């Protein structure tokens, strides 16, 4: 008998796995591709096949004071929300995981609750509360609302890191002469930072894309981009919407990339 190389048996599981991955990828990327086609197509409606390539919708988007004001407002709000939610979220997570607090499970559930309540109700409830208490709808009220729904993301990601945290590392620092405050800044903070910043990325995107919570809390001339886009869509459903979407996607992507550059996001994508 001559030795023939063994043929690798057909692996149905592996084939299914690859197919599923391909489908998922297509499911995620296809809408973006369609938006891009729509954004570059010169007609004010989706025509297929595209009749040409034009930047007129991008020009319209960047040339519109309304869109630009909304874009800057959204970016500004999202940046403040990013900072606030990492500070609050990290502090909450540390307290929850380290604090020996009574009723810890209940407290954790409480801090996560903004994720369970439909965001539209959160927005409506805050709107009502602001109006009743005479605060009105200042921009910090909007920021507070966004922070409320963004903080749970930071708590989640930070708790995940804290869960696997070897506390002996902190003890080692203490034995070497580091006071509790120094232990926190020299060891604890650098080590939970990946989780905190991963949560921060979520927080930024949650705020930047936030529609339901913003819906009731924005004021005339102080509308965030998603709200402006929604209202624009009711009257002019043209390529400017698609252009705005592409800009949003690219902005969100660049935030992720910048954070990755600054702090090495890769290290903690395993959440």
């Amino acid at each position, binding site marked *: 008998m001559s030795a023939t190389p063994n043929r690798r048996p057909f692996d149905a599981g592996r084939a299914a796995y690859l197919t599923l991955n391909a489908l998922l990828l297509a499911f995620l990327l296809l809408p973006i591709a369609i938006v891009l086609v729509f954004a570059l197509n010169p007609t004010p409606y989706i025509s297929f096949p595209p009749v040409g390539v034009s930047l007129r919708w991008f020009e319209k988007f960047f040339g519109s004071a309304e869109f630009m004001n909304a874009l800057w407002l959204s970016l500004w709000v999202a940046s403040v929300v990013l900072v606030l939610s990492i500070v609050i979220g990290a502090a909450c997570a540390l307290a929850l995981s380290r604090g020996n607090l009574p009723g810890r499970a209940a407290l954790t559930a409480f801090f996560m609750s903004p994720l369970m309540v439909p965001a539209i109700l959160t927005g409506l409830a805050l709107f009502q509360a602001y109006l009743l208490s005479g605060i009105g709808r200042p921009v910090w009220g909007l920021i507070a609302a966004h922070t409320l729904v963004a903080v749970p993301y930071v708590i989640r990601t930070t708790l995940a890191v804290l869960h696997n945290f*070897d506390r*002996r*590392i902190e*003890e*080692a*620092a*203490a*034995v*070497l*002469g*580091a*006071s*509790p405050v*120094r*232990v926190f800044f*020299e*060891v604890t903070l*650098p*080590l939970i930072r990946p989780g905190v910043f991963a949560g921060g990325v979520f927080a930024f995107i949650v705020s930047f894309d936030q529609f339901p919570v913003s819906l009731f809390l924005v004021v005339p001339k102080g509308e965030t981009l998603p709200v402006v886009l929604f209202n624009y869509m009711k009257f002019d459903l043209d390529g400017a919407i698609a252009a705005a979407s592409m800009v949003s996607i690219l902005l969100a992507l660049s935030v992720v990339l910048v954070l990755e550059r600054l702090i090495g996001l890769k290290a903690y994508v395993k959440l």
Partner: protein
Amino acid sequence: MTSAAIKLDQVTKTFDGRVMAVDAVTLDIAAGEFFSLLGPSGCGKTTSLRMIAGFEHPDSGRVHVGGKDITDLPVHRRDMGMVFQSYALFPHRTVAENVAFGLRMREVPKPEIERRVAAALAQVALTGFETRKPGQLSGGQQQRVALARALVVEPPVLLCDEPLGALDRKLRQQMQFELKELQKRLGVTLVFVTHDQEEALAMSDRIAVMNGGKVEQVGTPTEIYERPRTRFVADFIGEINILDEGGQLRALRPEKIRLVAAEGARLSGTVETSNYLGGSTLLRVQPTTGPSMLVRETHAGARASRAPGDLVGLTWNDSDAVALES
């Protein structure tokens, strides 16, 4: 390098108000001594060590180091070195930064830090690894970094919590020699927690065998091995035969028994099993009456002379059968 004596005085620690982790333990550890806390898991050895370090506060009793009561002193003011089983290196810092950490906390001037870090790394044969991160090192190398990090501050006391537990056997033996040699050279007082009796015997000046939160016996390795005071100590260290002579329990090591002709021997019986161990052979002998006996037959060159089924006689010196406290 200075070293300091450690004294635990009637130290007690309970957890959750119920479990008695450490029960009125009193220990006197001399300056410059290599002292091991030996026992099974849950015996209170690690809790005792953590009370010396300051991670746990005793419910009652005092801890003295270098003649000073440090019971209420926070960890970072105790000026000790510690090596953990998991090494507990700072994963976000380089090897050099890890080693420099304690010096930085002590606000040692920068040039001196650099000099001492280099010296400490040289001492553990890790020169050239300064810029690596701990994740890029092998287990043995990480262990050495942990050692260098603990020793660079020249602490009078070095605490080791199962520091070699995660290493493989060969490396572990090598590190045992190195650690012992280093300790003698530096003269530091070293408290070593382990559940490995061989390790404790090989390295220690003295050993405290702990069980159920209490100290069973303190002594040199020879004392602990040759003259176990309690049945627990005798059982925990090496192989042992427990003889019951009219209610008085005696401990007899297998290697103290000699194989002789069956007739006229103290005991005679049949070899049940024979385990060849390289340097020796461990026989299980079933006497005509009583429990089976372990006998170690050492052989310089020749193989074991007895096989299962052989009839053998056993004999030993009375002085080798150590009376145990009941």
